C-alpha cells in the first residue's frame, strides 16, 4: 500500500469506504484466475472491435490497445453532484471568457488577465477577433481533467477546450464491464452514461446556424484513419448517425460548405471537427494542410456553418490562462470557483521563475501550450539530464512554462497478473455546451497510470483506463 496518498477504496483504513464495500468484497472473494481471465477477455474483445489508437513517433506500434483495467472506479452521488455543479460553472465561464476575448475584451481592460498572455498565445486566432460564435458557444465539447487528493476536494488539473478525446472509451468501457462483470455491475446502482451520443447530437443541433432551423446536416470531420483517435471519430459518427468526412470530401463555394456524395453535393451546416485549428483551412492557416477544406473559415465567418469547437477556443485552455480561472469565474459569474485550481507558479513572473528553478526536482513543469503529456517534466521522477534540459528551456522561454507541486494523486485498486495494487488515477468528464444549456453524463474517463508510482496517466505515455461508476448512493 502506497503511503501518503488518498486511496479511493481504503482511505488508508482497514475497512473500505462504504461505497467501495461491494467491490472490496468481490476482490476478496474472486480467485485471481477470474481476474486474469476477464482481463484477457477484455483485451480480445477490444482488439476484435478495433478499439485501437496510434502512438506518434513509434514504429511498429501503428495500432495499440489502451490497457483496460477491470476494477471500476467509484464515485458517490453526493461527490458527483458537487463535481457536476463545478463543471457547469467552469464551462460557462470558459465560454463567456472566449466570447469576451474575441469581443469587447472587458477582462483585459479590467486588468484581471494580462493582455500579452492572450495576444502572444499560439492558440489565439486574430482571424476570430470581432466575431461572435453562433449562440456564443465556443467550446461545445470540453474535457475537464480532475484529480483528487483526499475524500473532500476535487482539483482541476487542466481544461481541454479544443478537441478533447476519450469519450468513446468512457462508453466502450461501460459496455465491457456490463458484459464481463454483470453480477458486480448489477449489485451497484450505477448511473447510465449511454445517452452521451444523444446529448452530443442535441448540443450540436442546437448550435446550428440560424438559417437551418428545422433539420441541420451535421458531420464529423476527421483527419483520417491514421490519426491516433480515428477509432473515436468513427465510433461517434456511428452513434450519432452522421457522416464521417475527411477534408477531401468537403468543398466550399460562395461561403457555403458542401460534401461530395454519390448524389452530388449536399450542404453541410454543423461540423464537429476533430482536426486542429492549424489544419482546417489552408487558405487561412497552414497552407500545406490537406486535412481541412479551402474556404472553410470564410464559410464559418459568414455564419453559414458552425464549427465545433470554434476556432481559437484553445486560448482558454492554455496552462497559463488556467492559473487565472478562479479570477475568470469570479469576473463573469460573480461566484467563487466550486472546483479548486492546483497551485501554480507562472514562470513568466520573476519570483515564481526563481522558485521553480530552485525546486525543479520537486515540481511538475508543463509547457503552457502542451497536451497529451508531451513536453512535461515530472521532477521527482526525472534524471539529472532531464532536469538540466528543462532548466535551459525555462531560462530561454520562461513565458512558455508553468510549474505545479507534485500532486498526491489519489489511487485506485488496479488489477495485474498475479494481484491487485493501487495506482494513481485522474478523471476526465465531458461537458457539452449547446444553445439550450449544458449537458453532462454522470461519469467520464478514468485514466490510470499503470507503472508503479507513476503520475502520468496519458495513454500516449503508457496509461490505461477504467470504467467510472457514479452511484445513486452517497459516499457520506
Amino acid at each position, binding site marked *: 500500500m502506497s503511503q501518503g496518498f488518498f486511496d479511493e477504496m481504503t482511505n488508508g483504513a482497514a475497512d473500505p469506504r462504504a461505497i467501495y464495500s461491494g467491490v472490496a468484497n468481490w476482490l476478496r472473494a474472486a480467485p485471481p484466475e477470474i481476474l486474469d481471465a476477464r482481463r484477457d477477455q477484455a483485451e480480445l474483445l477490444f*482488439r*476484435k*472491435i*478495433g478499439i485501437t489508437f496510434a502512438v506518434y513517433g513509434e514504429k511498429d506500434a501503428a495500432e495499440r490497445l489502451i490497457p483496460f483495467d477491470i476494477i471500476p472506479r467509484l464515485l458517490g452521488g453526493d461527490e458527483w453532484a458537487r463535481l457536476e455543479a463545478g463543471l457547469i460553472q467552469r464551462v460557462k465561464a470558459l465560454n463567456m471568457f472566449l466570447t469576451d476575448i474575441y469581443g469587447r475584451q472587458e477582462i483585459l481592460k479590467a486588468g484581471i488577465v494580462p493582455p500579452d498572455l492572450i495576444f502572444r498565445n499560439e492558440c489565439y486566432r486574430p482571424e476570430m477577433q470581432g466575431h461572435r460564435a453562433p449562440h456564443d458557444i465556443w467550446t461545445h465539447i470540453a474535457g475537464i481533467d480532475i484529480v483528487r487528493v483526499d475524500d473532500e476536494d476535487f482539483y482541476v488539473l487542466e481544461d481541454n477546450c479544443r478537441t478533447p478525446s476519450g469519450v468513446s472509451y468512457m462508453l466502450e468501457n461501460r459496455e465491457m464491464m456490463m458484459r464481463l462483470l454483470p453480477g458486480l455491475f448489477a449489485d451497484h446502482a450505477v448511473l447510465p452514461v449511454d445517452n452521451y451520443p444523444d446529448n452530443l447530437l442535441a448540443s450540436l443541433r442546437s448550435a446550428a446556424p440560424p438559417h437551418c432551423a428545422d433539420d441541420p446536416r451535421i458531420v464529423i470531420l476527421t483527419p*483520417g*484513419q491514421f490519426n491516433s483517435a*480515428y477509432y473515436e471519430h*468513427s465510433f461517434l*459518427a*456511428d452513434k450519432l448517425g452522421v*457522416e*464521417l*468526412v*475527411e477534408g*477531401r*470530401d468537403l468543398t466550399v463555394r460562395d461561403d457555403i460548405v458542401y*460534401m*461530395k*456524395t*454519390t*448524389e452530388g453535393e449536399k450542404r453541410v451546416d454543423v461540423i464537429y471537427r476533430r482536426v486542429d485549428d492549424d489544419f482546417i483551412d489552408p487558405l487561412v492557416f497552414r497552407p500545406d494542410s490537406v486535412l481541412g477544406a479551402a474556404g472553410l473559415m470564410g464559410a464559418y465567418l459568414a455564419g453559414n456553418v458552425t464549427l465545433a469547437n470554434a476556432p481559437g477556443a484553445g486560448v482558454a485552455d492554455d496552462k497559463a490562462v488556467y492559473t487565472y480561472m478562479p479570477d475568470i469565474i469570479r469576473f463573469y459569474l460573480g461566484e467563487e470557483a466550486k472546483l479548486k485550481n492546483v497551485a501554480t507558479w507562472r514562470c513568466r513572473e520573476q519570483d515564481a521563475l526563481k522558485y521553480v528553478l530552485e525546486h525543479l526536482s520537486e515540481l511538475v513543469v508543463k509547457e503552457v501550450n502542451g497536451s497529451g503529456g508531451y513536453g512535461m517534466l515530472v521532477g521527482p521522477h526525472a534524471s539529472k539530464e532531464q532536469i538540466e534540459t528543462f532548466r535551459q528551456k525555462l531560462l530561454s522561454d520562461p513565458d512558455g512554462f508553468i510549474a505545479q507541486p507534485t500532486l498526491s494523486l489519489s489511487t485506485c485498486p488496479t488489477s495485474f497478473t498475479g494481484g491487485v495494487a493501487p495506482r494513481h488515477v485522474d478523471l476526465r468528464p465531458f461537458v457539452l455546451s449547446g444553445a439550450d444549456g449544458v449537458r453532462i453524463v454522470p461519469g467520464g474517463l478514468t485514466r490510470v497510470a499503470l507503472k508503479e508510482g507513476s503520475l502520468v496517466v496519458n495513454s500516449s505515455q503508457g496509461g490505461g483506463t477504467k470504467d467510472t461508476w457514479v452511484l445513486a448512493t452517497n459516499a457520506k
Partner: protein
Amino acid sequence: MLARTADNIYWVSRYLERADFLARLIEASNRISALPTTYAAKQDEWTSVLIASGADETFPDHFDTANEANVIAYLAFDDRNLSSIRNCIEFARTNARAVRTALTVEMWEHINSAWIKLKAFEQKHSDPTAIDREALIGFLDFVKETSSLYDGFGYRTMLRNDIYYFARLGVSLERADNTARVLDVKYQLLLPEHEPLGGSVDYFQWSAILRSVSALTAYHWVYRESIKPWNVADLLILRQEMPRSLIHCTSEVVRWLDAIGNQYGRHGNAQRQARTIQRKLESASIKEIFQSGLHEFVDGFITDNNGLAKAIAEQYLLG
C-alpha cells in the same frame, strides 16, 4: 452517402472477391501440377496462372522462374504484388476501417479478425516460398471463408439501401472480370480441335477451369454429361443460373446499378453501359461465339467491363 464511402465499400467487396478467386485459382492449379507429367504440361500451368491473375507483368521483377513455389508465394503472400491475397485482405481491411460506420458491426469485426489472423499467419511463416502444402491449404480455406462470411454477414445484417447496393455491385463486377480472365488465358483449351478423346490431358485442364470458378459440380447438374469444352464455355459465359458466368454477373451488375439509380431517381452512363453489355450476352449463342472467335469475344467483354468500371467511378465514386 459520401462518394468516398461508396468507393471504399465497393472496393472492400472487390478485394475480397479477388482474394477468393485467387485462392480458388491456386487450388485448381495445385491439382493440375500434382498430376503425373503425362497428364499435364506443368510449366505452362503456373505461367497461365500468373496471366489469369494479372500478375505476369511484375512477377519477373522479383523472381527468375515461374515455378510452383515462386508463383504461389507471389500470388498469395507477397506484399510487393499489389493484387496478392494478403494485400487484398489488408486493402479490404484498410478500406473497411475508413468507412466502418457504413458497415455493420458483424462485417467490420469479421474483416478485422481476418486481418489479425493474416498477421498471425505471416508471423508464423516468415518465408513465403517455404510454406508446405498443408499450411497452404489451410490458408486458402481461410481466405475463401473470409470472403464468404463477409458476404454472408452483409446479406444478413445490412440495410437494403445504396450502401448495400454498392457492396453487391463490387462483388458482381469483380467476379465477372475474374471469370473472363480465366477464359482469356485458357481459351485455346476450349477450341474445337481439342475435342475429348476420353481421359485426355485436356480433360483435367477443363475440370481445373471449372474448379477455379467453383463450377465443377454445377457443370454436371446443368449438362448431365462428361466435360466438353463448348459446354464449359457455355456455362461460364451464357448460363444465367451459373453464379460466376459472365451473363449472370452482368445481370447482377445491372440489377444493383438500377437499384442505385432508382434510389437516387436518376440513371446515367453506368446504367446504359451495363445494359449494353447485358444485351450483347443475351443475344449471343455459344455457336456464334465460337464461329466469330472465343478469344475476341472474351477480350471484348473484358474491355467493356473495364469501361463500365470507369463509368461507375465517374458517376458515383469520385465525387
